[in-house]
C-alpha cells in the first residue's frame, strides 16, 4: 500500500521528489479550513457522516475524541488543530474519513475530521511544486509535497509523521 510509495519518496518535504520518475497517486481530495489535502486512497477505508463523539480528557489536542465506527472504537483526529488552523463549526458538509496508517509498524485505524470531501482523483508527481509560503504554522515535515489540482494548490500530507 502507501508504504512502498513512501519509501521511494525522500521525506525531505518541501524539497520534494526526484523529478526523473513520474508517480501517479490516486487520492481523495479533502477540504480542511481553506486548504485542500490529498489523502491517498490506499489508506482510506470509508467515509461516514458525523457520529456522536466521546471526548478523551488528557489526550493530545489533535486527537480529542473517540468514535464508534461499526463496533470499533477509533480515535478521531482533528488535523486543523495539528496545523494550527482555526476551528470551525460542523456544517452539512462535515464528514469523517476513516483511514488506516502504519505507525511504528502497526496498522492503526482512525477517523479524520473533514470539513468537506470532494472527489477521488489522480495526481501526478510531475506537477509537484516547491512548497509555497503557506504561513508560519506549516511544519515542513508534515508535508510530503504540494501539487496542483484544478489550478489550486493541494497538500499531500505525511500521515505517519502528523500522527506520531
Amino acid at each position, binding site marked *: 500500500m502507501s508504504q512502498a510509495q513512501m519509501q521511494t519518496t525522500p521525506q525531505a518535504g518541501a524539497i520534494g521528489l526526484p523529478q526523473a520518475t513520474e508517480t501517479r497517486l490516486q487520492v481523495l481530495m479533502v477540504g480542511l479550513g481553506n486548504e485542500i489535502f490529498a489523502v491517498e486512497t490506499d489508506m482510506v477505508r470509508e467515509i461516514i457522516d458525523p457520529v*456522536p463523539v*466521546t471526548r478523551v480528557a*488528557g489526550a493530545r489536542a489533535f486527537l480529542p475524541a473517540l468514535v464508534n465506527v461499526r463496533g470499533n*472504537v477509533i480515535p478521531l*483526529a482533528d488535523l486543523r488543530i495539528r496545523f494550527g488552523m482555526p476551528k470551525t463549526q460542523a456544517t452539512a458538509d462535515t464528514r469523517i474519513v476513516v483511514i488506516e496508517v502504519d*505507525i*511504528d509498524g502497526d496498522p*492503526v*485505524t*482512525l477517523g479524520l475530521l473533514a470539513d468537506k470531501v470532494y472527489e477521488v482523483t489522480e495526481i501526478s508527481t510531475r506537477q509537484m511544486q516547491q512548497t509555497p509560503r503557506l504561513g508560519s504554522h506549516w511544519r515542513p515535515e508534515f508535508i510530503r509535497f504540494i501539487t496542483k489540482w484544478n489550478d489550486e494548490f493541494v497538500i499531500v500530507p505525511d500521515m505517519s509523521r502528523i500522527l506520531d
Partner: protein
Amino acid sequence: MELDPTETFRQEAAELLDSLETVLLDLGQTPQDRDLIDAAFRALHTIKGSGAMFGFDKVAAFTHDFETAFDLIRKGKIDANHDIVTVSLSARDYIRTLIEDPDSTDPIIGEAIVEELQRLIGGGSAPATGLAPVGEPEAADGSSAEEPAQAGWSIEIAFESDILRNGTNPLVLLDDLRALGPCAVEADLDNVPELGALDPESCQIAWKVTLHSSCSKDEIEDVFMFVRDEMKLAIAPLPGGTAPLYPELDMSMPDAVEEAPPRVAAAEKPAAVKSRPEASPAASSAPEKAELGRRAEDKGTTVRVQAERLDELMDRVGELVIAQARLSQIAHSGTDLAIKAIAEEIERLASGLRDTTMGVRMVPMGSIFGRFRRLVHDLSRDLGKPVDFVTVGEETEMDKTMIERLADPLVHLIRNAIDHGIENAGDRATTSKSATGRIELSARYVGAQVLVTVQDDGAGLNTARIRAKAEENGLIPPGANLSEHDIHQFLFHPGFSTAKTISALSGRGVGMDVVKRTIEAMRGTIDLTTIPGHGSSVTLRLPLTLAIIDGLLIRVGEARYIIPLSAVEECIELTAEAEARAKGRSFLNVRGDLVPFLRLRDVFDAEGQPDPHQKVIVTSIGDTRVGLVVDQIIGSHQTVIKSLSKLHSDVTMFSGATILGDGTAALIMDVAQLVTLGQSRAESDRTPEAA
C-alpha cells in the same frame, strides 16, 4: 485458518514435551512410579513416530536414541534417579530445539546427552544400542510382571467404533502381532449390526488372538501403543502348555461374515449388545477397567480449538452484548410489552452465552505451574539451594490470555524468591530452619478476582538495605520519614536492585518494575508483605478476564464513563454539610475514615453546571481508597472492553473504552491511576497545612 500438518506436529509435540517435562519432574520425586515411566516412554515414542512421519528426521533419530536408553528404565533394569531426570530434561529441551529450530542445533549436544544418559543408566557398560534386554532371561527380575517362559498370550482386542475414521487399520496391527510369533486370530462379530444398519466406516468387530510366542507383555502392548487410548486391550498369559494352532485361522473372519445372515444378526442384536459390555471387561482386570473408562471419558469430553477462533468468538459475543444493550434500551423506552419480553429473553440468552464463552476461554492455572517446577528445579541446582516447590490451587481458572501474560511476571517473582529470598543452606542452618527452602505458588478466587501468591520462607526483605539504596540513588532524602510499606515500593522502581553482586539470574534490577507494569496493564495490583527472618510473599490480585467486566455507568458533565464495579466500594451523596466540613480540602469523612476525593468534573474539564446533588463513588485499590465525585450514577453496565488506540497511548486516566446502548463510545476509568492521582493531591493538600 487451516494448519499445515507440520504445524500440527509442532503443536502436538510442544504439548507432548510439556507433559514429558512434568512427568520427568514427578519422576524425580517418585522414581519408582511405573505409570510415570510408562507415560514418559509413551510421549517419547509418539514424538519419534510422528516426527518421522512429518519429516523431522533429526527429531526422530535423537528421540530414538533417547527412547532406547529410557527403555532400560522402563524395563526395570535400573531405577530413575535425580541425575537421570536432569539429563532427561536436557534431552527434552534438545528435542524442543530440534523441532523449533533444527538448523541451529549442533548434533554434538545430542550425542553428549545420549552418552551421558547411557553412562548413568548403564554405568558405562551398557551397549549403546540398548536393544539387548528384550530377550535376556533376567528380564524377570525387573518389576514388571512378565513371565518369559510363557507359552503364549491370549489377547482380546476391541477398538472404539470410530477407529477407522481416525485412519487406523486394525489389520496392520494384527499383522504386527503376527510378526511376534504364530497367531490364531478369531473375529468376534457379536456387535456387527445387520447389513442395512451396517456403517462401513465403523469398526464393530472385536478380535481374540492367541499368540504363541515367548515375547513379553510389553512387546504386545507396544504394538497398540498409538491406539491404546481408543481400544480395550486385555492380555492374559496362556494357561500352561501349548494350545493347538488353528490352521484355518485366516479364513475364520470372512467365513464368519458370510455365516452371519442379516436376519439372524438382527434377531440376535439386542442380546448381543447387552452381553457385550459384560463379556469384555470381565477379561480385563479391575484397575485396567477403571483406567480405560477414564481415558474414554477424557477423549469424549475435550476438543482442541485454535486460540484465534476463541478470540473471534469472544469478539462476536462482545458485539452481541452491545447490540443486546441497544435493543434493551429501545424496548424499555417504548410501551410494547411483547418487545420488552423478547428483549428480556435476549438479554438472558446473551448473558448466558457470554458466561459460557468466557468459561471456554478459562484454563486452569496448573497449565503454567508446570513450567515453574522446571524453573525451580534448574535454579535450585544452579544456586546450590535445595528448594521444595509447592503449588496450591492449580485448578483455579483464568482467562487464557491472562494466564499467558502472567507467566513472565511469575518467572521473575519465583527467581527472586530463590535467588534473594531463600538463604544459603549454611545461613539457614544457623537460623534453625530446615536446610531445604520452601516456595509456595498458590492461586485462589476472592470474589471476582484471582489471587496468585508466591511465598518463600527465606530471610524476608531487608528494609534497612532497601532504604539505604534508595537514599544512595537519591530517591529519598536521607532520614526521610517513610513507612515500611512505602520503602518496599522502591523495589518496583526501574533499575532498583539491592543485590550486592549481580548474578546471572537476578540483581540487575530489571524485573520488578516490569512485573508491576505487566500486572497493572492487566488491571491487577501487587501486594508485598514480609516478615524478617520468616520470608516474604508477593500477591498478585487479578481480574478473572480481560474481555468483559461489570461496570458502573456514571455521568460527569455531558459525558458518560464506566468505573469497573470491582473497584467500587460504595456510593454516597456529597451532602452540603459534608462539603462544608471538607472546607475546600479534598477529604471526606466516611464513617470516621478520612478518604481523599477527586472532583471528576475538574479532572476531566467538564463543561456546564454541576448537578445539584453530587455523588461520591468510593473506590479502592488494595488498601487505599479514594472518592470520585460525579454528577450522576446511571447504573450497572455490562462492559465489553475495547482497548484504546495506540494513538491514545499517552492517555493514563482511562484503561479502555466500550460502546453504550445508544452506540456511542464511553471511556473506562483506570481507577488505579485515579487513586494515585487522588493520593498525590491529598498529599499536596496536607503538606501546606503541616508546614
